[in-house]
């Protein structure tokens, strides 16, 4: 079963069960409040603790944990998961100059649950691996076609931290789990939450940046080492590692007024001041956890009111296409990337105000249509399926998303083919929606959606013979949407198959879309 059907099945369960679960009270749990949900630091702590335990050398304070994690991972060579030739890890920063910003272990370990052993939290949105004793964390994702992939440096193997050690599951009588066998500490090899070939990032230092082809090969994931955040001010990361002042292409933000993306020239005075503020800003261990900045009740309520939400999101693009997510809080806290959850920069509020004012005024070039055009052009330029992309865009609809999934060479990282292309067309209110997908003809019997359509009676016909009689047409069976037309169409064109799902869209629009491929 695919999609949400399995969840829909539960929709009709007894009302008593819903009411009972609805009333399931929240309980106070001091340790949970204390534990930063941001898995990053738990992970770092866990790494340090495990290695500390292995060596029988429990650290005294949280501030030493990161150091132990890196050094021990480097010393324990069997635990290094990269299969490339090991090289000596030489810390770039002298020990005396480093600061380590982690969660406070004492408040977590001793004050709140003294009888329990800390364990590694499982963060589903948290990606990391260890290479040469350094922990690399996801910094940003780039479009798959970007020419940034350098030499292969090794292969990282998946290691699911959820099941990383027996003491993760200390509940009495826990059964043996064939799928995720519990592994004793002595057998534990810390690896990471991602797997696959790891490459250098062209023109950048391997000890700071590495990259991978992401899942579905539609993205490049760029990783940076968290151990690099050992400096005292923002310039150590922004300037020394990213060369942002010289290398910045533009700054973008999503407007709160119209939710469109705007680009600002890096030479703008407000941007210059903003970068200056970050460069001068001091790294601090923000007393608020990453989640509490957003999801604690007052902040959550603030999300309900855009004016009260204290965080503005900004993206900085570099000339070599790195993009950096920056959270700017009106109280002068600045967060960088996805990796450094509990670390933040404390910056001069006066210096970030001009940028915040500029964002409030929708200053800059609106990127929305430009991005749409770029995305569609990339689909049309695709060697494998470019000629199967419709030239017609239905009235009132626009291309809101495109997905090109590539086939890549695991050894070189090169793109060697295209798996499929998907284009989403939507109207302003997202009522009328068309999902267009083109794929190799041999996928017709494996793709669930097409198989389902064929089972529903859709005739898989050549594009020349396509008309309304070949479509599966029905009214939506969704509650509240009964009057909407829903359709599915499957069309063969040359050596590809085009599959279209449409919501609240007239059949003639679909026919026009398909016809425009050959006209």
């Amino acid at each position, binding site marked *: *079963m695919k*999609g*949400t059907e399995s969840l829909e099945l539960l929709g009709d*369960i007894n009302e008593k*069960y819903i009411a009972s679960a609805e009333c399931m009270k929240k*309980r106070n749990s001091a340790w949970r409040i204390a534990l930063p949900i941001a898995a990053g630091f738990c992970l770092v702590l866990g790494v340090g603790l495990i290695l500390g335990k292995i060596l029988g050398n429990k650290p005294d304070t949280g501030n030493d944990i990161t150091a132990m994690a890196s050094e021990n991972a480097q010393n324990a060579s069997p635990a290094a998961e990269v299969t490339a030739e090991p090289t000596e890890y030489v810390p770039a920063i002298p020990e005396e100059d480093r600061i380590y910003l982690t969660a406070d272990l004492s408040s977590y370990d001793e004050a709140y649950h003294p009888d329990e052993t800390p364990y590694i939290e*499982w963060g589903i949105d948290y990606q990391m691996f260890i290479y040469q004793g350094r922990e690399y964390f996801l910094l940003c994702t780039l479009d798959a076609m970007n020419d940034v992939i350098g030499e292969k440096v090794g292969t990282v193997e998946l290691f699911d931290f959820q099941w990383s050690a027996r003491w993760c599951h200390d509940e009495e009588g826990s059964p043996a789990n064939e799928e995720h066998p519990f592994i004793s500490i002595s057998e534990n090899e810390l690896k990471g939450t991602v797997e696959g070939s790891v490459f250098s990032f062209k023109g950048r230092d391997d000890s700071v940046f590495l990259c991978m082809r992401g899942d579905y090969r539609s993205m490049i994931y760029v990783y940076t080492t968290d151990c690099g955040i050992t400096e005292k001010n923002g310039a150590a990361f922004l300037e020394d590692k990213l060369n942002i002042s010289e290398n910045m292409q533009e700054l973008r933000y999503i407007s709160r007024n119209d939710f469109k993306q705007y680009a600002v020239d890096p030479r703008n005075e407000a941007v210059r001041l903003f970068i200056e503020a970050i460069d001068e800003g001091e790294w601090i261990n923000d007393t608020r956890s990453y989640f509490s900045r957003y999801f604690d009740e007052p902040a959550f309520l603030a999300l309900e009111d855009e004016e009260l939400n204290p965080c503005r999101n900004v993206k900085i693009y570099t000339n070599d296409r790195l993009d950096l997510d920056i959270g700017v809080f009106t109280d002068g806290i600045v967060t960088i990337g996805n990796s450094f959850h509990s670390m933040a920069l404390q910056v001069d509020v006066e210096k970030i105000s001009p940028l915040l004012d500029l964002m409030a005024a929708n200053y800059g070039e609106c990127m929305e249509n430009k991005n749409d055009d770029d995305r569609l052009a990339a689909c049309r330029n695709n060697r494998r399926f470019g000629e199967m992309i419709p030239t017609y865009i239905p009235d009132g609809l626009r291309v809101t998303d495109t997905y090109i999934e590539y086939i890549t060479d695991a050894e070189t990282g090169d793109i060697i083919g295209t798996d499929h292309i998907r284009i989403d067309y939507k109207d302003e209110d997202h009522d009328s*929606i068309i999902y267009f997908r083109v794929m190799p003809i041999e996928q017709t019997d494996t793709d669930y959606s097409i198989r389902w359509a064929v089972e529903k009676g859709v005739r898989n016909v050549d594009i020349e013979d396509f008309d309304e009689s070949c479509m599966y047409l029905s009214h939506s069976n969704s509650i509240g949407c009964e009057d909407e037309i829903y359709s599915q169409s499957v069309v063969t064109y040359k050596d590809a198959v085009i599959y279209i799902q449409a919501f609240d869209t007239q059949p003639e629009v679909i026919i026009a879309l398909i016809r425009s491929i050959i006209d």
Partner: protein
Amino acid sequence: MEDGRIVELYLKRDETAIKATEEKYGARLRGFAYSALKDRQAAEEIANDVYLKAWNSIPPNEPADHLLPYLLRIARQLTLNRIKRLSCVKRSAVLTELTHEMEECIPSGYDMAGELEARELKREIDAFLSRLSEEKRNVFVRRYWFFDSIPEIAERLGCRENRVKTMLYRIRSDLKTSLKNKGYNV
């Protein structure tokens, strides 16, 4: 205002019923939709659609003693519809994760189009839930009905997340076994 009084207003076709519903349950309905969609505007729209749907369905329905579950059920279906329509492939990561978990224990050949089979399967799931302890049932319902995250459930339960994960894993395993014993091809 009491639920019974609100339902009475619906039955009398008094439009203040909607206002009363919004005042009493609006935040919870929006919160429910927001937790799955992470979209404030969409959550607001879902809540509004729930009021409309409630207006159109009471009468004939009279959920005087279970108004909130009744509204949440509508909100849940509207939320799932929205997810299906807006993001077929790039769905909310949470929903994808939940779907994968449920697929471990729901028959693979099951087809929503087979209404009779669907009803029978739903009945089996209901019966299975009735055999669970209240705590386990609540955890299961919070996860797969309310789409709560593991940390949220752990917070409600006042326990560690791994306990919740273990509990859910066991419930899914038991559901799978139960359905297998009933002849389903899981």
